[in-house]
């Protein structure tokens, strides 16, 4: 199975993890280690007292030598995105940026018009942009045409755990953007849902809350890793065509004559 390639870098896994909401830093570290995730998202903030962050958070993760994907979470304007992305590039030492630009605070839906503007400017400044976006086909096409090689459409709003709300939209994205790297970013709550989108042919999955808020985050991270792998293998294998009528698994020609009467 070929590795997932993000802007020229091969990732060891098609499961990406977010680093927020874990009960402890130790559980985050164990989830990373046991799932062997391909990359980790994180962010920059003013560090409030008692908040997980700063050196105690950063140094242990830095030592993992895991690919890092900083986000621009919390930004509502293009200017905010650009400043935060530049700050992230310096501190985290990566030109990867997960572009988040919120258009509505209720469902944290990305602002599509500003998202395009921000993506264009970030690309012009040399960033490898991974925009968090909805499953809107035209928006995704525009982002891809701008030069975003990787798109991160939602399955459902961030942190909702609702799973795939619009299977048609996601399958259409895969169909219409066959060369884009598509990573499902948000809304997955269960490993089966990760497997589902990987079966559609998505390239990877990023999960945070589904793992961090599980009863046992380490076990859940492992479950997601296996589900992602299973979904990918199923996609590569090619699923059978479904039909509306039954097709017997056991050959009919040698059925005993007394069982051959139609029902």
């Amino acid at each position, binding site marked *: 199975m070929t590795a997932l390639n993000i802007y020229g870098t091969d990732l060891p896994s098609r499961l990406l993890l977010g680093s927020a909401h874990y009960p402890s830093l130790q559980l985050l570290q164990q989830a990373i280690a046991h799932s062997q995730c391909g990359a980790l998202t994180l962010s*920059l903030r003013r560090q409030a007292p008692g908040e997980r962050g700063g050196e105690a958070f950063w140094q242990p993760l830095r030592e993992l030598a895991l690919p890092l994907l900083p986000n621009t979470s919390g930004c509502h304007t293009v200017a905010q995105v650009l400043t935060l992305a530049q700050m992230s590039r310096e501190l985290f030492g990566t030109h990867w940026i997960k572009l988040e630009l919120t258009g509505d605070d209720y469902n944290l839906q990305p602002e599509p018009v500003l998202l395009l503007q921000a993506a264009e400017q970030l690309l012009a400044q040399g960033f490898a942009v991974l925009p968090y976006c909805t499953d809107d086909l035209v928006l995704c096409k525009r982002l891809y045409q701008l030069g975003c090689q990787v798109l991160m459409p939602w399955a459902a709003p961030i942190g909702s755990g609702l799973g795939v709300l619009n299977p048609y939209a996601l399958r259409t994205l895969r169909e219409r953007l066959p060369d884009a790297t598509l990573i499902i970013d948000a809304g997955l709550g269960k490993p089966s849902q990760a497997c589902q989108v990987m079966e559609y042919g998505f390239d990877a999955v990023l999960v945070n809350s589904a793992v961090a808020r599980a009863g046992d985050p380490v076990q859940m991270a492992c479950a997601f890793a296996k589900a992602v792998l299973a979904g990918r293998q199923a996609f590569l294998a090619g699923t059978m065509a479904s039909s509306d009528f039954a097709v017997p698994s056991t050959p009919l020609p040698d059925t005993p004559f007394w069982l051959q009467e139609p029902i």
Partner: protein
Amino acid sequence: MSAITLWLNDQPVPATAQTLADFIQHYPLEGSFVLACNGRFISREQYPKLMLQHGDRLELLRPVAGG
């Protein structure tokens, strides 16, 4: 030099430093951080050159968990 007031993450901070590099050295600011001044990112290379003005708003950010 007379003291000026800077705003660091919305908190007033008296300072006598002329440059951002001086301010960081004397405040002191430690660990991993990045700075913006008046909404603009300031790279580390710019710290010695950035002349501070009364009322400048500094934003200091550190790594945190994120999804």
